[in-house]
């Protein structure tokens, strides 16, 4: 049984997860499969590029964020996936050796009108490296099952 449901992520809820250590091998392997650009594939070519050294694909950063969240709480939750991300900002390069952590802050919640057994959680997710510098900010709309399968939530949010 899942530990966490929609009700466990009220507005203002904040939590931190991680860390996840990024290696050069992983950056190159992801890039070879999904984003084969020189700055993600080859140290020397990356040094000569605008980013100044090997760095992870922005989509790889998103995948790593997902893994940190999965291990942090999603796999213990009644997650029903996500409808999307209103915004993704790649702020700073993710480099080999970075130890990444993620902070989740709930901005808004509502019960689904078409599926009252489900609720939406709008959250801001910030990913930081081990120097505490933000590398990525994402806002996302997650779907979770409700413990109360019907009706409006107490407090009528």
């Amino acid at each position, binding site marked *: 049984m899942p530990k966490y449901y929609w009700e466990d992520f009220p507005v203002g809820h904040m939590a931190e997860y991680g860390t996840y250590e990024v290696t050069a091998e992983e950056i190159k392997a992801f890039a070879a499969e999904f*984003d*084969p650009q020189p700055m993600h594939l080859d140290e020397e070519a990356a040094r000569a590029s*605008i980013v100044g050294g090997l760095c992870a694909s*922005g*989509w790889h950063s998103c*995948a790593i964020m*997902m893994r940190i969240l999965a291990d942090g709480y999603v796999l213990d939750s009644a997650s029903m996936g*996500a409808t999307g991300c209103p915004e993704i900002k*790649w702020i700073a390069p993710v480099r080999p050796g970075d130890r990444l952590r993620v902070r989740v802050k709930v901005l808004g919640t509502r019960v689904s009108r078409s599926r009252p057994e489900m609720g939406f959680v709008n959250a801001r997710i910030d990913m930081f490296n081990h120097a505490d510098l933000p590398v990525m900010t994402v806002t996302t709309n997650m779907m979770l099952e409700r413990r109360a399968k019907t009706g409006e939530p107490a407090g009528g949010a």
Partner: protein
Amino acid sequence: MRYFEDMRVGERTELGSHTFTADEIKTFAHRYDPQRFHIDDDAAARSHFGALCASGWHTTAVYMRHFVEFERREAERMRAAGETPARAGPSPGIRELRWLRPVYAGDTITFAREVKELRDAAGRPGWGLMVAQNTGVNQKGELVLSFMGAKFAEKRGKA
């Protein structure tokens, strides 16, 4: 990539198609998004999705692969025509990313992009900012993925 001056609002480009196999959906999910409906056929069948489907981050990663390959073909075409391809600037980010429908095992997704906005890049002389809507459509013609991507594009300059 092409030069900023050569881009036109409304231009639509097909980037290519990809069939998502159950194996690759599970491989990606085991690595990055091991939720039950991405890794286990039976659990996925019991979930609200009804069948195994790809992580949304897998879908965007496969989009990226097609975009990079398209850009490479475009650069080769320009070199063959005696032109120097424009330098690609970084992407400051994505807006309005939507996973509109699940991408199920066996689905073939066709990716495309359409230029929506072209404007000067504030504070970056010699560069413009291009905003494009990027989409994925399944074999039934249903939109499964959409996002607005911004990218800095080099200008030809004074010449």
